[in-house]
């Protein structure tokens, strides 16, 4: 089969459409295929916090690059994307967590990210509705919030504007060496490079990759402008999010441009259906009430779930896919997935790295930490 395009991207989530825009921008002929609709997967379920995370050097590098790219785009974003430079407040409940504030602020300043250590009364000047008696926090002014589904739709529009093609309504059933995709209806297409950007679903097309769905619950309230001003996250969040096996909940509440509050967050492995789980949701609310006591009285409108695509080291998979049998790179098949709870943020950095690598440019940050073969090469062939 002759390649019909330089790049064929499967999935119009935020990662897929960001990749399409970057590929089109560097002059590659690009086609995006999507089974349902743009931004209808994890992208339509996530919080949309654009945040620099300091979990590992690779994570800082990618989130920092990505946040900078979002900032560059910001003047062009339409109002529907609801970009809001509200910043993040990492909340420290006690002295132990205050020590974490110091450590975190250090890491940020080494990376060139401005943050402000907030103590005592100042915390309540920023966030009067937090419970009394908290120790302080770390304010990261540069972080922001967007509304992901419309951001994805806009990125796709930009890609189409730059010549990218878009096709929706047919799911891809198989992906083969040589850049071949087979659709559910039996149709086939070929491209020089196929990019699998189907989020948590990627294991269906490329079996054996180190990816697991990690379920999360969210609750949205009615409009209460000003109730909180920053995205508020407990510092215990890091301890919780690190847990790779247990179900965890953490205080993570976001102010939306609409004046609504988006209440998170939970993390579960092994939960594969989208059902609302009562015990987890109750725990999540209880945690949020502890930090924001007045939250109890606010009216809630809807509860939903979504799936993050999690890798063992919490860093995404960007690059050639491992062959399920040999563990060696598949010819003409790449991955762009595994973004866990950060894919809205890191979509832009991912796309930049992917496009640079495809045309042989050196990415502006080291790309090796995101190389999908890092797992299969360690383990050898996957049985």
């Amino acid at each position, binding site marked *: 089969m002759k390649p019909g395009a330089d790049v064929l991207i499967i999935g119009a989530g935020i990662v897929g459409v960001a990749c399409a825009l970057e590929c089109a921008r560097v002059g590659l002929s690009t086609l995006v295929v999507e089974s349902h*609709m743009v*931004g*209808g997967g994890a992208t*339509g379920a996530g919080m949309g916090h654009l945040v620099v995370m300091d979990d590992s050097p690779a994570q800082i590098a990618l989130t920092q690059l990505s946040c900078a790219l979002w900032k560059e785009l910001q003047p062009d974003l339409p109002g*529907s994307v609801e970009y809001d430079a509200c910043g993040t407040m990492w909340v420290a409940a006690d002295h132990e967590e205050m020590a974490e504030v110091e450590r975190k602020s250090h890491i940020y300043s080494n990376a060139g990210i401005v943050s402000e250590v907030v103590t005592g009364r100042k915390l309540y000047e920023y966030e009067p509705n937090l419970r009394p008696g908290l120790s302080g926090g770390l304010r990261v002014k540069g972080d922001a919030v967007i509304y992901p*589904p*419309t951001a994805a*739709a806009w990125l796709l529009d930009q890609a189409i504007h730059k010549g990218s093609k878009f096709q929706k309504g047919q799911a891809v059933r198989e992906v083969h060496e040589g850049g071949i995709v087979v659709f559910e209806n039996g149709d086939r297409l070929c491209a020089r490079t196929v990019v699998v950007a189907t989020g948590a679903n990627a294991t269906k097309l490329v079996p054996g990759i180190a990816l697991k769905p990690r379920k999360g619950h969210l*609750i949205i*309230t*009615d409009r209460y402008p000003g109730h909180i001003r920053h995205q508020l996250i407990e510092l215990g969040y890091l301890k919780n999010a690190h847990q790779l096996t247990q179900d965890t909940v953490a205080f993570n509440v976001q102010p939306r441009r609409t004046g609504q509050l988006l*209440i998170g967050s939970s993390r579960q492995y092994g939960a594969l259906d989208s059902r*609302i789980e*009562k*015990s987890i*949701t*109750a725990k999540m*609310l*209880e945690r*949020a*009430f502890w930090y924001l006591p007045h*939250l*109890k*009285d*606010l*009216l*809630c*409108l*809807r*509860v939903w779930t979504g799936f993050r695509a999690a890798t063992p080291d919490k860093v995404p998979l960007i690059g050639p896919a491992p062959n399920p049998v040999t563990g060696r790179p598949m010819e003409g098949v790449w991955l762009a997935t595994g973004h866990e709870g950060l894919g809205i943020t890191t979509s832009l950095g991912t796309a930049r790295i992917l496009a640079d690598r495809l045309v042989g440019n050196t990415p502006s940050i080291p790309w090796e930490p995101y190389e999908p073969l890092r797992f299969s090469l360690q383990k050898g062939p996957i049985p």
Partner: protein
Amino acid sequence: MSGEPKRASLLIVGSGPAAIAAAVTFARYADPSEQCLVLDEMSTSGGQIWRSGSTNGLAKYWLDGMSLPNIHRKQGQVLDVLPQKPGVVFQSPNGETQICLGNDLVLATGARERWIPFPGWTLPGVVGMGGLQAMIKTGLCVANKRVVIAGSGPLMYPVARSVQKAKGKLLLLAEQASFAKLANFTAHLPAYPEKAFEALGYLAKLWKVSSPVGTWVQQAGGEGRLEWVQMTNGKKSWRMECDYLATGCHLIPNIDLARMAGCTIEKDRVKVDSLGQTSRSHLYAIGECTGVGGAERAIAQGIVAGLAAAGQRELSHHQSAALPRWERFVQLLDATFSPRSELLDQIREDTIVCRCEDIPHGKIKPMSCWREAKLQTRLGMGPCQGKVCGPAAKALYGFEPDFPRPPFQPLSAQALFQMYQSENQES
């Protein structure tokens, strides 16, 4: 949360005619030790129709029955239906949530008004028909106010009477259904003498009011408030100045709880067998949530389900012989009062479809399904969660709305927390 689950032999959600008939019949025919618990948001029984003051003999007979000693009534909101057993999570007006369990659960959740958006429908002064009736009842003064009633379905007549009784100036009572459809309806009416008599009763009171058929609202207008409506009959249009426009396009079954409970739904109604049993065991559905057919049908269904729940299977079967006739009436109503295509075509780019989020038709039109429209335009994301715009979007664009799930109405985070916690303990 208030401790132990509340238990009853029969648990009924709703207290309209269907629910009341089921409760009273159960109370009369079951063992006197068996209790029936009726849950309803409203402070008084009667549902949509009897609450608003209709005190005919039939209503009085059944409402009086509610004082039987083994019928208990609790005011509050049903937040969720339990997935495993016949039971619900219930919230009292003071905010307390509680699990209520029964041997059988009856859903009698009624119907709601269908709105088809037209230019100007969101102006203050444009109200739903049930809404106007309720407002008059709770003290809205329409005396000497000019009122136009324009919509579809039998609900218009009691509303017209309420306006008359409250001394409002009823300028027009317009039915959108065509003359041919109404002629067909009238031809079938003798098979439903109770309905024919009711219709004659209204006719006797309303004959002086101009009551055109095949006539509908094209547009409503005014500076910040309703000042005029533009009517049409397809051939000519005219404007009328008025203070209130009551509108609505027949009713649609309220099936949220039943869908949530996993009951089979067919043609937007809860599917039931001849005894009112849904696809889920020990779970019955009666009244308008199984199809819009009026109070007499709802009562007939309530009697059948009440007998079945009381263990009187034979009597129940016997009584169920009355139901097929009413099923045909439901279909007759649906066929007669379905919105004409002109109602769907007169919408403009800037006509608001989703009132909670202010989303105009022009933004929704390019979307491919409900979920895409929701994610990209915020359609249905507001406090009503698609209760109003969902049916409109279905009529206008063929979108199948979301699968409903709690919270069905905006609910405080505290109540939501309690709901999850009590359900978690119960399972």
